Structure formats: structure tokens, C-alpha cells
């Protein structure tokens, strides 16, 4: 019933068939490539970014709170694997539901599913902490506070090797990074190795499906309506009985939890957690994905995240990287990838500001304007 007010004008049956087909293709995708193929590798990372995009979509797309520090949750999620799935704390000897191999190692080694839950919980708390100072703010000001929060977390990551928790145990390994991280180890699934990437891919896909499901369900719920209401007009929303603080914090917490889950996955997949991964540019990268796809539109976000991620890992380094040198210019395209994202974003804003696969509400807001859309205009023009 509610689906009708969602993203598209297509009939529900067609939508459903399209979604089912897309998911089916996604599931069989890695079978067409060798186990360790670069394509599977890139797609796995792309799927992890989709999870982050969907998380940020809750905060920015649904609730209209412009978050420029989303990388913080990637960091916290990734560090959760650094702390609980590696030999980083060599003095501790804690093993929870892990395989024979990890059992023999010193350090804290927990099952990935437990770490996933811890990461989500830690990030939800961090999301609420970042949300609190922004509650009385609007638009640009929220962006500035969240940006600062992202930077604070990054500085903690860099300087964490100087911060002692107990004994010799430090907070992070700074720029050196915590490595190796335990491979994910789940029952009934092939071994997760760096040679066989299929299990990684399917795990990432499963995360995407879970997060997608939660996104859709929340959008069409009491909470989703409350988010849209406060995005459109906070004063009217409060006067209609929507508790602003609780509703906003809920958006921050949910969005952050997804970021943490993706971060935990990437921590294990990339096999290192290192402070340089968490630069400000990454927040913009994720934000660009969801703006490209269409703020608030779940399928738009999926497409935008996949597209930008593959442009980053495939198109720029592999296909187009030599173009400048062939033209006699002395740089690689990889060096200016953020410039390219910026250019794409500008292009998008000019040609199709509502995104590739826009959400209907957003489209109305952008083309007709609404009284309470100040924050929104700022988002789409960021």
C-alpha cells in the first residue's frame, strides 16, 4: 500500500520483479568469475560501500540531517575488528566461538557475528553522541559539527598509539595499522581466504540485503513518517506530537550502526585497520554516492554507491588511468580521483539534482520547493 508513495511510478508487481531479478543476478554474479577475481574483489568493496550509503541515507536522505563525518563510523566499526579480532592485545587471551586456527593465536579473537553486533552497538552510541550537540542546529551547522566529529575520531585513530588503555594495551596502532585481522569464519560457508573471495562477496551481499530491508521497512513506518515530517518542517512536526530529540537521535543511531557494520566487514576484508583509511574525503565519497543515486531513494542509493565505487576501483585506475599520460600530461588519473568525483557531482547537480533514481518526495521538493526545505537545499547543493 505505502509502496505507491515510494520512489517510482511503476506498478508494484514490476517493481517487485525488478528487485528480485537484481538480487538474483547479484547472488550468482561471482560464479562467472574465478574465485580470486579482481571483479569479485571490487564488487565486494562496492557492496560494503552500499551498506554505508544506505546507512547515511537514513540520516541525510530520510531525516534531512547533513552528516559530513560519516567516516567516523567506518573507523569505529573497523577498529572493533582491530580490537576483538586480532592479536593486537597480545596479553589478553580471549577466544569466543572461533575456529581452531584463531584459537591458537594470542590476543582477543571473537566470532565475526559477535563483533558485528558490537560494532553496530558502539556506532549507534557514537551516533547518538554526535547527534546530541547538533540537536538545536540546522543545515550547515549540523554539517560543521559532524565534520568536526569525523576529524576528532580520525585524530584519535592517528594518535591512538600514544593512548594507553591498561598496561601495554593502546587504543589503536596509529598509522602503522593493526594487522592482520582475523578472517571472517562462519559455519556452513566456504573458508574465507584472500584467494577465494566468493564467501566475502556473499557476506557483503547479505549485509546489503539486511540493511536494504531495514531501510525500506523503516521508510514505510511510523518512524519513517516522523523523519520525513521533521525533514520538511520541524515546527509542524513537533506540534503534531513528534519528539524531535528522540526522532533525530534514532536516525543518527540507525545510520551509524549500519556504518559500523560495514566498517567491521571492511576491517576483516582489508585485513588492516589503519588511521589513514579514515580521512575526511571518505565521508564526502559516501555522501556523493547517495546524492548521485538520489537522496532518500533506497534503490537510487544502491545504484549510486555501486556506480561511484566501481568508478573508483575500476574505471579510473584500470581503464582511464593512462589517458593523461597518453595525452602527454604528467599525472595519473588516480591522483585526481576526488577531483573527478567532484566533477561528477557538479554535473549531476546541473543535469539531474534529484539523483539517478530519485525518490518521489525529493523530486517534488527540488522542483516545486516547500516551506521547510532550507536544510534540504543545503544538502543537495553541498
Amino acid at each position: 500500500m505505502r509502496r505507491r508513495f515510494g520512489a517510482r511510478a511503476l506498478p508494484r508487481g514490476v517493481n517487485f520483479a525488478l528487485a528480485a531479478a537484481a538480487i538474483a543476478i547479484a547472488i550468482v554474479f561471482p560464479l562467472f568469475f574465478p574465485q580470486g577475481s579482481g571483479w569479485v574483489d571490487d564488487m565486494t568493496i562496492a557492496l560494503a560501500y552500499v551498506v554505508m550509503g544506505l546507512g547515511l541515507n537514513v540520516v541525510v536522505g530520510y531525516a534531512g540531517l547533513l552528516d559530513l563525518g560519516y567516516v567516523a563510523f567506518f573507523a569505529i566499526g573497523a577498529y572493533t575488528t582491530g580490537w576483538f579480532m586480532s592479536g593486537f592485545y597480545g596479553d589478553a587471551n580471549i577466544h569466543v566461538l572461533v575456529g581452531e586456527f584463531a584459537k591458537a593465536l594470542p590476543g582477543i579473537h571473537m566470532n565475526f557475528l559477535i563483533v558485528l553486533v558490537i560494532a553496530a552497538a558502539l556506532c549507534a552510541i557514537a551516533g547518538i553522541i554526535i547527534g546530541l550537540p547538533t540537536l538545536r542546529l540546522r543545515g550547515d551547522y549540523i554539517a560543521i559539527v559532524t565534520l568536526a566529529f569525523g576529524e576528532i575520531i580520525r585524530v584519535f585513530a592517528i594518535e591512538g598509539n600514544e593512548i594507553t588503555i591498561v598496561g601495554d594495551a593502546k587504543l589503536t596502532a596509529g598509522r602503522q595499522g593493526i594487522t592482520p585481522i582475523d578472517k571472517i569464519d562462519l559455519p556452513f560457508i566456504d573458508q574465507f581466504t584472500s584467494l577465494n573471495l566468493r564467501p566475502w562477496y556473499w557476506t557483503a551481499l547479505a549485509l546489503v540485503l539486511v540493511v536494504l530491508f531495514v531501510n525500506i521497512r523503516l521508510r514505510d513506518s511510523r518512524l519513517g513518517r516522523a523523519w520525513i515530517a521533521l525533514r520538511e518542517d520541524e515546527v509542524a512536526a513537533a506540534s503534531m506530537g513528534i519528539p524531535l530529540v528522540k526522532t533525530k537521535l534514532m536516525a543518527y543511531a540507525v545510520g551509524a550502526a549500519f556504518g559500523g557494520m560495514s566498517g567491521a566487514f571492511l576491517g576483516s576484508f582489508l585485513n588492516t585497520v589503519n588511521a589513514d583509511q579514515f580521512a575526511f574525503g571518505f565521508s564526502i565519497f559516501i555522501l556523493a554516492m547517495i546524492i548521485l543515486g538520489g537522496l532518500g531513494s533506497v534503490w537510487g542509493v544502491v545504484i549510486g554507491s555501486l556506480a561511484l565505487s566501481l568508478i573508483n576501483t575500476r574505471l579510473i585506475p584500470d581503464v582511464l588511468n593512462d589517458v593523461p599520460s597518453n595525452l602527454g600530461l604528467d599525472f595519473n588519473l588516480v591522483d585526481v580521483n576526488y577531483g573527478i568525483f567532484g566533477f561528477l557531482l557538479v554535473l549531476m547537480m546541473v543535469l539531474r539534482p534529484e539523483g539517478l533514481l530519485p525518490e518521489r518526495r525529493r523530486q517534488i521538493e527540488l522542483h516545486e520547493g516547500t516551506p521547510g526545505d532550507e536544510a534540504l537545499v543545503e544538502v543537495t547543493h553541498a
Partner: protein
Amino acid sequence: MNEDPILTTTRVSKIFGGLVAVNDVTFDIPRRRIVSIIGPNGAGKTTFFNMLTGLYRASTGRITFEGKDITRTRPDKITKAGVARTFQNIRLFSTMTAVENVMVGEHSRMKAGIVGSVLRTPWVRKEERTVREKAREMLDFVGVRKDQQEQLASNLSYGDQRRVEIARALASDPTLLLLDEPTAGMNPNESLRLTEFMIRLRDELGLTILMIEHDMKVVMGVSERITVFDHGEKIAEGDPATVRANPRVIEAYLGKQEAA
């Protein structure tokens, strides 16, 4: 039957920087009555409304609703306690349909939480269905045609938008309804229908209504009591005939209008 006023304000003021927008107003709203606040533009009427609904905090003074102090209560809690309002410049959620707007109004009466919504438990499904049905009934009640109910709020006619806003306010099951210039922009015929509707609300739902209104025909026709604001102060109060005869009111308000 309880004959205490449903809402009282005791020496309430609102000061913005150096500007005294509302000055020392003591006021009450009798139960199950339709009362009005009138006054020239900038008299502090809407500011006063915003204090009653928690959007502004009174600088001094005390506001009680149903005997409970709500001076420092958050807007959503005041709504939950039973005060609902509409706005002078319609503030519908324009990208939502009429039905969805009214469903937002029911927010404070709903219980679905985040986990229940994700799992969409039978209980949550039932609640959503009930709320949607109630929203439709509300729209029927205020007179929004069925074929308009699934339209986006921004596509509705002005009169329908006003009606949807009233339906949205009613959806929170209020006992006190505050209407801020409900007939603004309506033609005399529509105004008359709205007046009749307010009487129905009072008689059928037992609501108490406080409205700010500029249309003297509406005010004099429906109000059981009128309070006059000027420069942030309450300058007169009484039944329509008394207020109309009050020289201060004529000077501050009606006089000006006649001159214009």
C-alpha cells in the same frame, strides 16, 4: 461535570531581546466553549499561541493545562496531553499525501517502535491499518473528498489544505484545539461552512476551541467569548456584544478597520 477552565495562563509574558511581545497576560479557556483572540497585526496573538503549544517558552508566568503546569513542557508532550493546533500559514508536509499528513498527526497515539516496524509484526500491521482508516475517517469528517485524500498535500486546493490541517490536528485526539486564523484566504461561503464545522466539533466531539481570527463576521458569529490583544497586552474580554461596545477595542482595532 468539570467546570474548571481547561487551560489557564497566569501573568504570562514573552520578551524577545528588548521587545515585549506578550505582556503579563492572565487568561483562561472555559471548557467546551469556542473562544477567540482578536487584535491588530503584531499584537502578540500568535506568540501567545506559540507559548500555549510549547514552541516558545514563556519568559515569565505560568501556563496550566488540565491542572498541570505546562509552562516548560516540550511541544510534542503538550500535543500528547491533548492540545492540537493549526498554523496561520498552512504548514502541511507538502510531499506527503493528505492521508499521510493526518497519520503524522496520530504519531503521539501510536506505539510502533523501531524493532516492531522493521519486523512488521502483526500488531504493528494492525496499528498501521487502524491509523490509516482513522485518518480517512478524519478527512471525511472535515469534508475532504475521497478522491483528494491520496493526493499530495501540495496539490490540494487552498480550502482543502486548511481542512487537512484541521484533520491532522484532530488526529491527535485533542481536547483543546487552537486555530490560528482558520478562515484566512477563504471566501465568505467557505468561512461560514468552517464556522458551522467548529460548532459541530464542540457539540459532537466535546472539543474546546480557541482561535485567532481577523474575520469579524466569523468571530462575532461563533465566539462565546472574545479576548482582545493590543501591543502584547490583553485590553478587553467578554461576550461579542460587550467587546464590540468597548471603546478601547474600537480605538485599537475596530476603529482602525473602519477608517481603512
